[in-house]
């Protein structure tokens, strides 16, 4: 561990002080909205092609306060050779995930975020990010973040976490 690196130390304090779990999130909802079912949303994907230009994304995907990470907990793949929605080389993306709902400051919409984890290598160790919102103990698998969710993968080793937009969330205001 980088003993004297302040940023790292801060991350470690967060690890310790802010719930400290392994860093993988998923819901039973994830089983529905996860990778396998993306094709269920052809229309939304189609509209991506035309209409007025989208507002540019705001924020730094390598920063813990990036909007997509509202419910993430783990090492940010953006700091590990991946990105906010891709895994680093040589890892395996977990097929099912916990789903969070985060508000995009660029368009004010709430999006459903799928926190797919990247597995098969040991802890990336960079950009540990902890933002517990709506987390629950393991008796609520759809909301718990205390579990190593590298379960559907060939290796149980957790490397980092992504935050992938899988849909627009229902606005209940």
């Amino acid at each position, binding site marked *: *561990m980088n003993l004297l690196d302040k940023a790292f130390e801060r991350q*470690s*304090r967060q*690890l*310790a*002080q*802010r*719930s*400290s*779990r*392994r860093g993988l999130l*998923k819901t*039973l909802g994830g089983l529905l909205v996860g990778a396998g079912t993306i094709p269920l949303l052809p229309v939304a994907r189609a509209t991506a092609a035309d209409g007025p230009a989208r507002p540019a994304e705001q924020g730094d995907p390598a920063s813990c306060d990036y909007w997509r990470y509202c419910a993430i907990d783990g090492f940010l793949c953006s700091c590990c050779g991946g990105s906010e929605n891709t895994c680093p080389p040589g890892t395996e993306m977990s097929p099912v995930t916990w789903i969070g709902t985060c508000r995009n400051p660029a368009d004010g919409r709430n999006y459903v975020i799928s926190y797919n984890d990247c597995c*098969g*290598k*040991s*802890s990336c*160790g960079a950009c540990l990010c902890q*933002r*517990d*919102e*709506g*987390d*629950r*103990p*393991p*008796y*609520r*698998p*759809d*909301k*718990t973040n*205390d*579990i*190593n969710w590298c*379960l559907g993968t*060939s*290796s*149980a*080793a*957790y490397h980092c976490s992504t935050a992938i937009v899988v849909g627009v969330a229902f606005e209940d205001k």
Partner: protein
Amino acid sequence: MKIARTGRCLLGALALGSVAGGVAVRAETVPPPLPIEPTGVIETLPATYPPSWFLVHDAAFFHMGDGKVYIIDTAAETLAQQVKGMVNVSMIGNIAQSARRNEIYATETFHSRGNRGDRMDVLTIFERQTLAPAGEVILPTGKRFMGMPQRYALLLMNDDRWLGVANFSPATSVTLIDLDSRKIIGEIPTPGCVLIYPAGKSGFSSLCADGRFLSTELAADGSVAKQTRTDVFFNSDTSPIFERPAVIGDTAYFPSIAGLVHPVNVGAGVAEVGEAWNLVPEAERAENWAPSGIGLIDRDDQGRFYIIMHPDARDGSYQGGGPEVWVYDAAAKKRVQRIKLQAWGLTLAVSRGPDPVLMVVNPTDMSLEMYDTRSGEFIKTISGFGQETPLMVHGSR
């Protein structure tokens, strides 16, 4: 020159072994040299660990395949005296201790090539005297509960003849192991319910998403005699509880995230949920105190439980730990001690026996802090024994 001398000493050593002896025999007045010491000596530990010994589980968050459980004597003054030994526990396993069998059980996961390759899940059985594996039970692959360390992911039952291993794949079940034969008796589905809590002499309960217990009663052969769902006693959305109870006698005290505690009778085959009471005295509720932490609660043998509390509780703060430990007389439903920590507490554990001590993990420097359970006074810090992320602590049993 030292270097050259060292070289000659290699021959010197062989020659002088006898010469030195000769000298000692000839001149009785010359103090004899230190005796030659045996090699190959391996230390052993007592079968029963003293109450002052704790098991400190470092899940090695940055190297999960190389977790470590340190055996620490908190009564000793020096680091050398405090560290009794260590066992590796791979991939954020969970551990249990049997005083009757003098064994430590650990769920572990290995891959044929470190972090890749074929996966194997194992229950490793360590002897307490030797801290060496006395045996293992191969578990069904990819099922055993793997997450932040729990006190109730493993449960000894039936006078320590059985061990239950909680599964989460995410399908939930319990693998029942016969510790005499070190073989799997069977796997018991616990649909919608997780982990494994005591229920009578040889049964267990699981905690369900719908706010109730599923209690499983077992026959003498370990087969399922009956499964019973209790009434709903909490709402996992609006009034969630911690999955981490303190068990005193036949009562398991489950704190709620909002600060209530639910007493549950676990002495019978089916869990009986009693009336919840508030951990926070009325006068202090404006400060919004609530429980928080990982191993946030434990109990002593005098009927008290200890819980980490933090003020200004908010959504998402229930696992971050807090600045105080509150101590309760469980039967009297009364707070009897309020311990202000040096900095912060993430996890705690209390020793067994007549004079319990409180050990708290300080996450700001990953040290362990020792407190007097009567006066609440800070006694000392234990650190530097190799721990990096000591997320769970167990008093020895």
